[in-house]
């Protein structure tokens, strides 16, 4: 973890309300699942730094990327970022996706603001020769991001309305496949998707690693603000420091 100055290389809309931001990276090498917090505005409002997962890292060029959704004040400001703009970055933060349990095929699911980190993961596992299956879900074809999909990786797009790829949710698709015994499931995205993935993994007695989000203040483990309830004696863990990737079985699914 380091705090450093970064310059925007590019920021472009990659799907409806989704943007891909590429920027210089001067910190320690980030790994899939890790995130950063950033500030690229002045003044008192919005106040807090905002956390985003990394979607790629290019070690040769020392550049990283993230995919963000325009939601509120901070992300609205971020849509105006231009080449050369300055950002204050703190990262890489948090833990990484664990490697798949030996002999298990990585099955990676993502959607919405969880798209970035799963792309990073799928790419890394592909490069490591682990032949992941990547399943991405979106509301409709307008939300399918126009970004580089990992090479050499079986990739399936699902849309709720079938306007691109498979019709139905990511979980519908996974349940439609009969070759997924022996998988290690990974997921990042909307809560219903993660819950569905967890349930599938429990049924199949398969490991399941999910990345979750919670509002953050410090982002480095100091403030206890990003706690989430867990099935452990200590009751809560910090998303920023103990996560953001957790074994789905310790999380409380409601």
């Amino acid at each position, binding site marked *: 973890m380091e705090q450093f100055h970064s310059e925007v290389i590019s920021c472009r809309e990659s799907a409806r309300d989704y943007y891909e931001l590429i920027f210089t990276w001067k910190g320690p090498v980030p790994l899939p699942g890790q995130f950063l917090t950033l500030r690229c505005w002045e003044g*008192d409002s919005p106040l807090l730094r905002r956390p985003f997962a990394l979607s790629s890292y290019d070690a040769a060029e020392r550049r990283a990327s993230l995919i963000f959704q325009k939601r509120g004040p901070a992300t609205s400001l971020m849509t105006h970022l231009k080449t050369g703009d300055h950002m204050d970055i703190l990262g890489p933060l948090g833990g990484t996706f664990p490697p798949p349990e030996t002999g298990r095929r990585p099955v990676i699911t993502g959607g919405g603001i969880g798209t970035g980190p799963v792309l990073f993961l799928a790419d890394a596992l592909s490069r490591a020769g682990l032949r992941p299956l990547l399943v991405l879900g979106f509301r409709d074809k307008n939300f399918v991001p126009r970004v580089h999909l990992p090479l050499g990786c079986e990739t399936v797009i699902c849309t709720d309305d079938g306007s691109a790829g498979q019709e139905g949710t990511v979980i519908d698709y996974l349940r439609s496949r009969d070759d997924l015994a022996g998988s290690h499931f990974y997921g990042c995205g909307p809560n219903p998707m993660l819950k569905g993935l967890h349930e599938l993994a429990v049924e199949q007695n398969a490991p399941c690693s999910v990345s979750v989000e919670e509002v953050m*203040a410090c982002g480095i483990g100091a403030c206890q603000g990003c706690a989430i309830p867990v099935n452990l004696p200590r009751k809560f863990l910090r998303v920023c420091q103990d996560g953001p990737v957790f074994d789905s079985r310790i999380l409380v699914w409601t």
Partner: protein
Amino acid sequence: MDLTVTIGSGTLPNPVGVASGTFGFGEEYGRLIDLSRLGAVYAKALTLEHRPGNDTPRMVETPSGMLNSIGLANPGWERFRVEKAPFLRDMACPAVLNIGGKKESDYLELVEKCEELDCHWGYEINISCPNVKAGGLAFGTDTHQVESLTKKLRPLTKKPLIMKLTPNVTDIGEIAKAAEAGGADAVSAINTLKGMVIDTKKRRPVIPAGTAGLSGAAVRPVGVACVYRIAQCVSLPIIGLGGIFTADHAIQYLLAGASAVQVGTALFVDPRIPLQVLEGIEAYMDANGFTSLKDFHGHF
């Protein structure tokens, strides 16, 4: 230029500390900034027993501020002494333990236990947390309880004893007088203001506990007014905090009567702020020919 601050039996190397609850027990931010340049680390609230903390979500951003309801989440005395105290002892700046509790005896027992340790410079007694059901805020709003608690704590330690006050009272000056009467070495102010944000879609408070504690730039005018009021009422040193983001803000607190300051929420915006604040105070003193922090007092 003399930047030291004397509080009771102790001296801080400079006036800029980091606020309790925003800096953990120092380890995390210690990886980002040079702790040796801080005036003090006011550690996360400590209680006798382990506190898992309040239900989630625990925070929400508000205009120029934030609400938190951490609920004094902390490992409790036993794990603290093993897991946290050694780091504090070796830390390159003074550590102030922030003491929480439900009833008077909790505070007394915990300070007694802490006296066995040598990891700290002094105590900040948290009688002002809005986020715990029993204790906390209740103590801090009643002059009799504040005086009584301070009186009973006083003989337990020779170290500096700071009472941390809440702004959620009719007259914070009266509470400060009670702390002074009880034998405190200093007061710190302000803890968070009581606030609430409601999710109009879900039709319930964003933070399950309902009300929570407001901090950040939004509360700075309230904090400065509180410190000014306290300075009119007591002659104790005052540690000012609430919304300090720049040296100018810290100087406002010093001019209002504070002898030291703490940076809290601003750390979440930029961890370098405490050191920038310190540098800015030095530059201001330099430019105005101030030789000690006392020169900030008595201008109006």
